[in-house]
């Protein structure tokens, strides 16, 4: 099967810098995978998202070497707005990814589908669906500027979901959410995953990554440190030294269990029971 994302010896360097922010990276992500991306600040996590969606180099400039293709076509050969028909990116800052031109929450969500030229009936159907998934129905008539940080983040996600992307890139999607908001977001992602959406999620909360993502990649200084199942990746010393340790693994280590350390709640309960 053609991978959704295929990178071969991909390297990217921002303009006016003297080192690669990313790479060399070899990576293949197949349809329907849910991949967590972890690593310290400046490890290249956001850059990875920009390279996959094509903003790097199309928007930033700089230099991309090696091969990067998404849905089988090289990112260099297709404008970013063209790729938006199949792939979406949720940015870190929920405020700046609003269009800044719409005065109601539902109109903001309609922005993407309208840009895609969808018929009005379908736009409305998608907007309703996206608002329902993100729990924003009651706020649909509000002005986006009147929303709280958490609500803005849900709005940014709704705006993306209304475009029904087959590939969803999320850069720290829970950063503004309270625990209830995070749980709701993860429920949405579980639903999308079950429906076959490919998800790549940058997340600092390692417990969440360990609990939900069947596959984790750890980045360090722009390179792939590890790529595999959470239980394997989070037990690598070089990953623990840079990306850190999920809370349950930390607690298990504290009382002398492992290695291998349990990385999820369930496996920790089991390991510590013995």
């Amino acid at each position, binding site marked *: 099967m053609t991978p959704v994302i295929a990178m071969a010896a991909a390297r990217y360097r921002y303009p006016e810098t003297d080192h690669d922010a990313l790479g060399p990276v070899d990576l293949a992500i197949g349809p329907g995978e849910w991949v967590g991306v972890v690593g310290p600040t400046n490890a290249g996590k956001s850059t990875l998202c920009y390279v996959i969606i094509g*903003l790097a180099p199309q*928007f930033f400039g700089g230099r991309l070497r090696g091969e990067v293709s998404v849905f089988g076509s090289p990112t260099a050969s297709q404008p*970013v707005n063209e790729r938006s028909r199949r792939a979406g990116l949720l940015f870190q800052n929920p405020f700046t990814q609003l269009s800044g031109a719409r005065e109601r929450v539902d109109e903001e969500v309609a922005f993407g589908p*309208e840009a895609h030229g969808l018929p009005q009936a379908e736009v409305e159907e998608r907007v309703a669906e996206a608002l329902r998934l993100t729990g924003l129905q009651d706020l649909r008539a509000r002005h986006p*500027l009147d929303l709280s940080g958490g609500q803005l983040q849900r709005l940014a996600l709704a705006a993306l979901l209304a475009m029904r992307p087959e590939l969803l890139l999320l850069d720290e999607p829970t950063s503004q959410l309270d625990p209830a908001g995070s749980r709701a977001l993860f429920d949405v992602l579980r639903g999308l995953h079950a429906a076959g959406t490919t998800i790549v999620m940058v997340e600092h909360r390692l417990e969440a990554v360990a609990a939900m993502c069947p596959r984790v990649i750890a980045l360090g200084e722009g390179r792939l440190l590890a790529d595999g199942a959470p239980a394997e990746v989070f037990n690598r010393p070089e990953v623990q030294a840079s990306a850190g340790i999920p809370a349950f693994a930390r607690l298990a280590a504290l009382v002398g269990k492992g290695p291998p350390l349990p990385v999820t709640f369930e496996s920790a309960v089991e390991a510590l029971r013995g």
Partner: protein
Amino acid sequence: MARGLSLYAEGSSPLHRAHPLTKATLTLCAIGLAFILPSWPLVLGVGVALLSLLAAAGVLRRFLFVAAGLLVPITLLLALVQSLANPHNQTVILPLGPLAVHREGLYIGLLAALRIADLVAATFLFSFTTRPADLAEALMQRGLSPRFGYVIQSALQIIPQSLETADRIRDAQRARGLETEGPLPRRARAFIPLLLPLVLSALVATQERAMALEVRGFGLKVGRLARYRIPDSLGQRVLRWGLALAVVAALAARLRGWL
């Protein structure tokens, strides 16, 4: 924490329901007439018409509130400066030591103030009764490119957005010890720490927003479909042409010296 974010005031008056282009024409023509018509009764007539429209739209109080702060100082200033110093001044009506208030200058100053009042009233009439989105939509349905439509819509949002950011910046800098109230020199010193973050964050936001727009498919060549229908009518079309003709007629009359 709901707050007024654009000047638009929700309403259901005929003016609210009128086509944005009708209101835009009305506003531009009122401004045109105010500056073309030569004598104060006519200029005042334009103002009275605008005030009745503001009243009909249910936004008269709101207008008076905003306008008082703006127009009273302007009127006083114009009347004072013109009546004291206009070169056409001849007839003294109130001697003030070495200076004197003159009838001619007072008339010129008050007429200028009246014209500015018409301009402000016309502008507010439009802003109070027209949703910016409707204006952009109406223009796009008449062939304006979506990119340009976006520019209009986002430009109209820049002020409320900046006000919001400016509030947060002021809070942050005051919490760091910056006095933003009090005598002028103190407030002047506060200018840079308040302004620079606004400029810098606007630059950063613009870049990020441009990226996000790409990712949301902005600028794709798609046959753009009308988002919603903005009702227009024959009556409104006639009114628009009529208003435009009135301005042209007034201009012609003025140039011919008939007015």
